[in-house]
């Protein structure tokens, strides 16, 4: 492959999408390492597979469903004790900058 498989700008963007922050060092290291994996993946990228049906699931199972019947629920003490911050039985989070997209 002639061009870089992935640029530092792309790695920065992807890190943001994944809510990760990279130092300068990490950025160059990860850019190189991800590049190596993507270069390896170029064999797959190059395959002509237009007629092949993608397979997202290993087994051909369909229509697994459950009845609309209530099941036992958790007590708030079962999980609120594990939460980093709680107020009035709810999970407390720092101020949110944007609306739900």
């Amino acid at each position, binding site marked *: 492959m002639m061009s870089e498989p*992935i640029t530092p700008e*792309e*790695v920065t963007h*992807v*890190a943001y*999408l*994944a*809510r*990760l*922050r990279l130092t300068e060092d990490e950025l160059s290291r*990860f850019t190189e*390492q*991800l590049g*190596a*994996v*993507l270069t*390896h*993946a170029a*064999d*797959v*990228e190059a*395959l002509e*597979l237009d007629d*092949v*049906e*993608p*397979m*997202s*699931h*290993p*087994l051909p*199972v369909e229509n*697994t469903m*459950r009845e609309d019947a209530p099941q036992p629920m*958790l007590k708030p003490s*079962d*999980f609120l004790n*594990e*939460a*980093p*911050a709680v107020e009035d039985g709810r*999970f407390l*989070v*720092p*101020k*949110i*900058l944007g609306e739900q997209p």
Partner: protein
Amino acid sequence: MTSAIPDHYQSASSIAANVASGEISAAETLEQYLNQIEDNEKDVHAFNLVTIDEARALANEIDKLVSKGGNPGPLAGVPVAIKDNLCTRGIPTTASSKILQQWKPPYDATVVRKLKEAGATIIGKTNLDEFAMGSSTENSAFGPTRNPHDFSCVPGGSSGGSAAAVAAGFAPIAIGSDTGGSIRQPASLCGVVGVKPTYGGVSRYGLLAFASSLDQVGPFANSVKDAAIVHEVIGGFDPLDSTSIKEAPSPFTDLLGQGINNLKVGVIKELMGGIDGISDEVIARANEAVTALSNAGAQVEEVSLPAALYCLSAYYLIAPAEASSNLSRYDGVRYGLRVDGNNLNEMNINTRTEGFGDEVKRRIMLGTYALSAGYYDAYYGKALKVRRLLAENFADLYKDYDVLLSPTSPCTAFKIGEKVSDPMTMYVNDVCTIPSNLVGHPAISVPFGIGSDGMPIGIQILAPPMNESVMYQVAETLEQAGT
């Protein structure tokens, strides 16, 4: 001391029989194993947590049940070590990650529940590569596990703690998870039996997801028969897992002891030197396994699995893609670590940046990239098509062959620190095991002698989905030939 291999392994089936008959109590059995842990755990570091009190309580319950004449179950008093990515109610479940910060789940994984119901005593939570991402157990936030055969070597991974626990005699049985070889490869490197069941054969409910369409829970044991017995216990339909299979397979121990006369075995040539990176010594040993099966009466032929060439690439697109989504939930809101910030976004970023190790970050970013706008078709979409090709290759082969054979790992256990700086070199460790995960088929690794370095070598037997009984049948023959 540089190794910790006991002289003798007790089989799970004999423990269960002795406990059920009252010959030896579950409590005494447990103490034997706790002593072994006491002696060697500081060198091996197989466990993130040894649950001594809980294990003693479980053992006492079994003994009480036996004294009352009750049926204590097929694993009565058998100590079982659980990979620390399976939920245990009220007991920290960490995935060897800082981000979970000793999170205590409010529920047991289905597998854990079934083991307890079968009379097993859960003895502790074993170390792993963080979120099961790795092939050496070096990517653990709590430090690496060492190979009981040689403390300077890795045990393989990601279920390195479970494999090491069984090899070191800390427990006769351990449970692991296998997404790209994470049970079979450490089993091979530690000289124990390791099984990846058919996808959907064992419930994933309560398994901290790495790559949902590839993850399967399975057993480690010191014998093929023990593995089959435990597989029987943990397997079966679970209404809590939509991907679990409703149809019951034929009992896994059914064909044990029957020999393999006239069975047809295909040897995958791409994994016997066709693909670079598999050591000559391992290939030579695999050829001896071929001879052994042939001597036992099987018809053995070389076969081709052309799509195997692309499996590594496909896997390292699909698994990270699913992982990037599965690991989003570790955001500092509901459980585990929170590193504060001025606003939600900063808190999310601080928490994840601090909480995840490098390998996890790499795979999350790789997966995010593979799914992101503009790259989906080129990477993720293509990888899913390779998966289809591979499934078609396998289906063709299974028209003519009962099982397939290959090495489990391209090499014996390597030194701690040797491959950790180069992800791509590390990823190649999975080249023989990945195909079974991509198509959801079962496979087993059976110890078959040692290499020139004195470290164990494992042979892999692959079988069609839901056909584990024949897989165990062939594996047992290999086990007998190898010892």
